[in-house]
C-alpha cells in the first residue's frame, strides 16, 4: 500500500467534488448539502445512506433472484400442449452437440452474471463497511466491471419479450412470458440500482482515514 494510493480526500479537507462536472467546492452548510455552483448538481460528501440503500437494493435483488430461477420465464403453447420452461430448463433444452454455445450464452448471461453481480456487490459492501484497506484497486476494478456488465443483463428480458410479441400464431403456436421473467427483470433493475447507489469513494475512505491517523 503506497502512500500515493492514499492521498488526502476532498472530504477530509471539507470540500465536495461535483459528480456531474467534477468541480471542487466548499459546502455552505455544515451537513454538506448544497448545489454545485457550476452545473447545479446536488452535492454531497458521499452518496447519502449509500450502504443502506445498496444493501436494500441488493437484498431485494437476491430475494427476486430465487423466483426468477424457479418460475417459468417462457410458456410455449403448441398443438401438442403448453409447456413452461424456467431459465435453467431453457439451458438444458438448448444444450445439444451443436447448440451448446447458445446454451452457454444463456447460462452465463442469465444465471452466472446476475448471481456474480449480487455476490460481488456483497463482497464490496462487506469489505468497505469493515474498513478493509486491502486490494483497493481490485475492488474498484470489480465495481467498474459490475457497472459495465449490469445493463447487458437486460438482454434476456428483451429477447423474451420480443419472442413473445413475435410468435403469436394463435391456434398453432404462441409464446407467452412467464412470471419468472418479471422477477428476472426485477433482479436486473435492483442490481443496477444497487450499483448506482454504491459510492465507490467509500472504498478509499477507510484507507485515507487510516493513513491520516497514521500521520
Amino acid at each position, binding site marked *: 500500500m503506497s502512500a500515493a494510493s492514499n492521498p488526502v480526500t476532498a472530504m477530509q479537507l471539507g470540500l465536495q467534488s461535483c459528480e456531474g462536472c467534477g468541480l471542487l467546492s466548499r459546502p455552505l452548510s*455544515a*451537513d*454538506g448539502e448544497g448545489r454545485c455552483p457550476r452545473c447545479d448538481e446536488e452535492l454531497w*460528501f458521499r452518496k*447519502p*445512506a449509500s450502504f*443502506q*440503500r445498496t444493501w*436494500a*437494493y441488493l*437484498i*431485494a*435483488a437476491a*430475494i*427476486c433472484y*430465487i*423466483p426468477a430461477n424457479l*418460475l417459468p420465464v417462457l410458456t410455449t403453447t403448441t*398443438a*401438442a*400442449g403448453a*409447456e413452461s420452461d424456467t431459465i435453467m430448463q431453457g439451458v438444458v433444452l438448448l444444450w445439444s452437440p451443436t447448440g451448446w454455445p447458445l446454451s452457454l450464452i444463456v447460462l452465463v448471461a442469465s444465471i452466472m452474471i446476475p448471481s456474480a453481480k449480487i455476490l460481488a456487490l456483497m463482497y464490496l459492501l462487506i469489505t468497505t463497511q469493515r474498513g478493509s484497506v486491502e486490494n483497493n484497486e481490485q475492488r474498484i476494478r470489480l465495481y467498474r466491471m459490475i457497472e459495465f456488465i449490469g445493463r447487458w443483463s437486460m438482454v434476456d428480458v428483451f429477447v423474451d419479450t420480443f419472442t413473445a410479441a413475435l410468435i403469436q400464431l394463435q391456434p398453432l403456436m404462441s409464446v407467452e412470458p412467464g*412470471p419468472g421473467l418479471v*422477477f428476472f427483470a*426485477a433482479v436486473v433493475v*435492483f442490481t443496477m440500482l444497487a450499483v448506482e*447507489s454504491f459510492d465507490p469513494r467509500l472504498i478509499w475512505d477507510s484507507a485515507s482515514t487510516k493513513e491520516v491517523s497514521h500521520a
Partner: protein
Amino acid sequence: MPEREPPLPPVPESRSVPKKRTRFSLVWVIPIVAALVGGWVAVTRYLSQGEEITIVFRSAEGLDAGKTKIHYNGVDVGTITKIRLSDDHRSAIATAQMAPKTEEFLVDDTKFWVVRPRISGANISGLGTLISGAYIGMEIGKSKKDRDEFVALDTPPVISGEIPGRFFILKTLDLGSIDTGTPLYFRRLQVGQVASYELDRDGKYLTVKIFVRAPYDQYVNPNTRFWHASGIDLSLTANGLKVQTQSALSILIGGIAFETAPSALIPLPAEANTIFTLYSNRTEAFNPPPRHPQIYQLIFKDSVRGLTPGAPVEFRGIPIGEVTDISAQIDLKTFEFSVPVTIRLDPQRLGVKIFDVGPDVNLETMRHKLIDALVSHGVRAQIRTGNLLTGSAYVALDVFPGAPQATVDWLQNPVQLPTTSGQFVATEATVEDIINKLDKMPLKEIGDNLRKALADLDVTLVSARGTLVSAQGTFDNTSNLTGANSSQIQQLDETLKEVSRAARSLRVLADYLEGHPEALIRGKKGAAK
C-alpha cells in the same frame, strides 16, 4: 440539532459534525416489498399445487415426465412429473402433480388410463393424440375414501361413469365375437355396449359386463332375454332355413340383442348388476323353461338319417318334445341292428294346455293312463322327413290304425314307446303299387286312339285354312273403301276446302264489322263509291 438557550451564561458550543445518515432509510421498503411479493408468489405456488399421486402403468410408452398431462373431460388436471421403473422392473411408476382442488377426485375407485389412438371395429378414438402425444385420461370414482396410489387400466373404459344408465351381468359359455365396445341392441336400436368381460375363476363361464344407457335400461327386467346377435344367424332345421341378423354393424363386429318376452304384467326394471344368461340365439333365448319333462326311448329298426338331437317330436303336427340322443345297438343273438332314440316330451312347456286338472290329481298316473290309452288306440312313433330339400327328419307320434298291438312297460327306464317303420318304407310300397297300376294300363289302345284323333285334327285344320282365305278377301275390300285414292275420301277433301274458304270470308267480314259497325246499316263504304 442542539438547541441554543440565550438566557444562560456562555457555554461551550457543541461541535457540528457532518451528520451520519444512519437513520432508517425509506429504501428498505424495496427489499421488504420484494420479499413480500416473493413470499406471496411462493405461497400461491405452493397452494396451487394439488396432491401428488402415483400411478402404476404396465408400460410408460408415450409418457413423458414433465409433459404428459392428466385430462378430465378435456381439462388439464395434472402433469406427470417423474417416471421410474417399479422395483420388480415390470411396470412403470409415474408420479403426477395434480392441480389444486382435485383432492376430491382422487378417491378409491378413480380410474386412470393412457389415451392413445385406438381403432376397433366399432369406433376410432384418441386421434388427437397422434399429434399431441399420449395423455392420461381419468374417470372420477364415487367412493368417499381418499387414495393417492393408483394402478392404471390397460384399456380405457368403454363407458364413462358420467353417462346415465345401468350395468348388467351376462353369463355365457362362449364369448363369440364379443369384445369391449360391442354394441347392444334393443329392437335393432343400439342402446348400450359391452363394458368388459372376463373368464370366471373356475373357467366354466364367461362374465360379460354390459352397460345399457338410460332411458333404455328400464326395458331390462327379470323377464328379459339376451342373446348373441353376432353376424348372421343361419339355421337349417326340419322347419326350414332361418336367417336372423341385427344391424349391418353387428354382422361385421357382432353384438348382443335383448328383448323381453311379452307378458300381461310388465315387471319392474331389473336392478343394476342383475345376472342374466346370454343365449346363443334368439330361438334359444325364448325357449320356455322345462315344466314336466319326461324321457322316453324309441327303438327304430330303419335308417335315422336326417334325425339330429334337437329335432322336434310332434303329435299330429303339434310339437310336444325333442330328440335328445341318438345311439346304435346290435343284438348279438339275432344280429339285428337297431337305433334307440331318446326323446324328451314336455307338452306343457310347448304350450299344450291340460284342462280340468283337479288339485289332488296325480299327474304321473294320469299320464300313464293317457299314454296307455293312446298306444292301445294305435299311436306309434315314426321317423318322417320334415324337409325334402335338406333331408332333416323329425319324430312323429301318430295313429296307425292297422298297427300290431303293443303295450307300454312302465317299469323300464327309460320307458320304451312302440314304433312303426318309417315313412320311407311306406312310400316304397306306394311307389310299387303305382308302378304296378301303370303296368296294367292299356297303353297300345290309347296310342291308337290318339293317332286317330290326330288325323281328324288334320282334316279340321284344312277346312279352317279355307275359312281364313275368305276372311282375307273381306279385309281387302274394307281396305279399298278407306284407301287414300277412294272417291269418298276425295269428296270429303273437297268439302273441307269449301268450309275452310267460307270460314276465311266470315273472318274478313267480322274484322270489317269490328272497324266499321255502321256498315251493317250503311253498307260497305268502298262498295258505295
